[in-house]
């Protein structure tokens, strides 16, 4: 009986010891896995091989830091990843700003296009007129948009290095007759100055 009790007691103790050992080994394996995964994620952040946003990177970094991994490699990678995330954030801000400016420019261009569409349409109508009389009628109609038949018309032939190259300046009257003669309108209005009566006093076009 005594022998039986002793056997059970010894057996139980041995089993408990082996369970603890297993748990310890399991924990060590999990920790090693965690360290390994942390290194992989940090390396991916540093070398830019991940498609994470800066916010996702920060989230992952915070998680890794919360593990308090006592590993010199991981600590070094964390520092590098923090610097990288700052760079990514700056690039994202720059890109967002560029996109905002691009959207604003596009909106401004569209607003201008619709603002000048009336003038462009008048010019197209003259160029596609059906004969001289029709063209002259359309010229008379178009001239109503301008302060005088002699207002200057500037035609941009190239835009390079931040400034414009122009063709010889002409007047709106001559330009409208030019369209009548050429039967072709291959320009686009880019700016117009107006007087208090909303009549155009200076027009700038660009060759398409």
């Amino acid at each position, binding site marked *: 009986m005594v022998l039986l009790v002793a056997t059970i007691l010894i057996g139980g103790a041995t089993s408990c010891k082996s369970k603890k050992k297993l748990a310890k080994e399991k924990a060590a394996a999990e920790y090693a896995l965690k360290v390994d995964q942390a290194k992989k994620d940090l390396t991916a952040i540093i070398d830019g091989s991940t498609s994470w946003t800066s916010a996702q990177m920060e989230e992952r970094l915070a998680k890794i830091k919360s593990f308090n991994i006592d590993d010199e490699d991981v600590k070094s990678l964390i520092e590098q990843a923090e610097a990288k995330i700052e760079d990514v954030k700056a690039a994202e801000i720059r890109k967002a700003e560029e996109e905002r400016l691009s959207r604003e420019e596009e909106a401004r261009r569209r607003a201008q296009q619709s603002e000048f569409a009336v003038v462009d349409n008048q010019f197209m109508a003259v160029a596609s007129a059906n004969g001289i009389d029709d063209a002259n009628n359309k010229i008379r109609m178009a001239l109503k948009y301008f302060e005088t038949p002699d207002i200057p018309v500037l035609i941009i032939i190239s835009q390079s290095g931040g*400034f414009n190259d122009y063709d010889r300046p002409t007047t709106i009257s001559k330009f409208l007759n*030019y369209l009548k003669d*050429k039967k072709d309108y291959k320009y686009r209005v880019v700016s117009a100055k107006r007087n208090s009566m909303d009549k155009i006093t200076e027009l700038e076009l660009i060759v398409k």
Partner: protein
Amino acid sequence: MKRIAFLIVILSAFGISSAVAQELSPERKQAIDSLALEKIRDLSKYISIIGSKETPWSEANRVIDRADELFMQGSEIGVSSLVRPEISYYTVRKYFERLMRLNYNKVEISWYNIEYVSDLQRQPDGTYVGVITIFQKFKGYDAEGRLVYQDTTKKDITVYVKRKETQIGGRLIGFWDVLLGDIRVKETSK
């Protein structure tokens, strides 16, 4: 004397630096090449309008004024014919006035193969000079609508492009002024 020599050195240096500053980028050079070709196409259009018997007299005269503005003062235009060996040269306005009064009932003039034979080259005074060649097909019809004369002429047109400035609305505008020079007849064939 030393002062004069110093002044010459300064002026020369300024001239060189301004020449370098005016060297054109390929994009800008391309733009003035195209502009000069466009002026030739404008002239082609004007010639066909002036020559057409369907063009009202007032319109033809207006177009002559526009065509005249394309040329440098004193330029001449050559005229040839299959029935005459010599080439006659007329001042620009005289040429257009003769063109308007040609003794046919219907006239068709078209230009084609318009291209540079000598690219625009920068001259010491900053003017770009080039030569553009064109082929002109001329057809003259009588009152019965019969084709009574036709020829094809190859012509060389000298082109001058100069940078100029003008004040518009208080702004200084730099522009390229394209002016055509003489139009020389090179060949005439049937």
